[in-house]
């Protein structure tokens, strides 16, 4: 008996449309990508949820006060306040009064190094200094409080008072959209 030979079809698929779409998507994602500059202490913030206000966070002229929790080995956590500025040119003059030093060498940071810092960890007293400097440096600055949902209200109140003291009475609370169930 003759063996039935299976005929192998060699076929060629035209991948041009797929590649076209692939490049289109690549271009889209590349253009919409936003890179976060490095800050002192990257905090993971679980945002509080809200349903009503849907204004988006502005990109320029923004000072963000991040209030986050940092877990300690013994299970408790420290509240950390980090002050960040979106405008690179504002950074050096505002951070200057903090007299920041390099962690390794102990030398004072240069203007260029300060401008590269997206955020610095501040104490409550230092927060008032930077808020005051920000008000002097850029009156158009907007202030956003980006706090973790489980930090104590007391800490947030202190931040609000620091802003209020230097006349930054309009503040933005950063929230996440509540998904309606």
């Amino acid at each position, binding site marked *: 008996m003759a063996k039935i030979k299976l005929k192998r079809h060699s076929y060629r698929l035209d991948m041009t449309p797929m590649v076209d779409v*692939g490049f289109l998507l*690549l271009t889209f994602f590349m253009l919409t990508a936003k890179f976060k500059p490095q800050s002192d202490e990257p905090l993971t913030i679980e945002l509080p949820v809200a*349903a009503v206000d849907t*204004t988006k966070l502005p990109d320029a002229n923004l000072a963000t006060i991040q209030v986050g929790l940092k877990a300690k080995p013994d299970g408790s956590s420290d509240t950390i306040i980090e002050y960040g500025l979106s405008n690179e040119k504002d950074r050096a003059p505002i951070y200057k009064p903090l007299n920041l030093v390099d962690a390794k060498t102990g030398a004072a940071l240069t203007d260029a190094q300060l401008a590269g810092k997206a955020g610095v960890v501040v104490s409550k007293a230092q927060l008032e200094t930077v808020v005051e400097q920000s008000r002097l440096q850029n009156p158009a600055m907007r202030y956003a409080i980006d706090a973790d949902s489980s*930090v104590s209200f007391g800490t947030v*109140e202190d931040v609000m008072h620091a802003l209020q003291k230097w006349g930054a*009475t309009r503040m933005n609370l950063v929230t996440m959209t509540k998904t309606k169930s």
Partner: protein
Amino acid sequence: MAEIVQSGGKRGKGKKRTRLGVRLDMTPMVDVAFLLLTFFMLTTTLLTPQVMEITMPPDSKVPVEIAESNLLTLRIRKDLAVFWNMGTEAPQRITQADLPKILKEHLQINPKLSTLIKIDRQAKYQTLVTMIDDLNETQAELGQHEKRFSLVAMNDTDQTLVGGL
């Protein structure tokens, strides 16, 4: 990896130029492109945070006087229990879910109502956002655009008032 395929060839003695058909193997380029595509797709964040804007009065020591009948006080204890009262009435315990109903009821009767939110300093920040959100929502439902509320921390008097309830 470009390969040059000679098409045609010399035929005859005419002055026809030899045409070169160039075929480029684009597989590596496409590979890299898809790799990049995967990277950008995975690192992108599409959920952007929103902001809730609040305006505080400038730091002045001048107290604002307000009629007792126009004041609704909300107190939030350390354990996140919510209490409410009108004017100088005794505070009543409610659940967070009841809050929009009570706010709506009173704001409907009296649009001039001022809400005073008193939160324990140790309570969670989420409570504050929820309170403001509830208030915003109620006022939006009623078509009132002027959003007014005061925000203070609970003092010792408040603590004794709602501490044992």
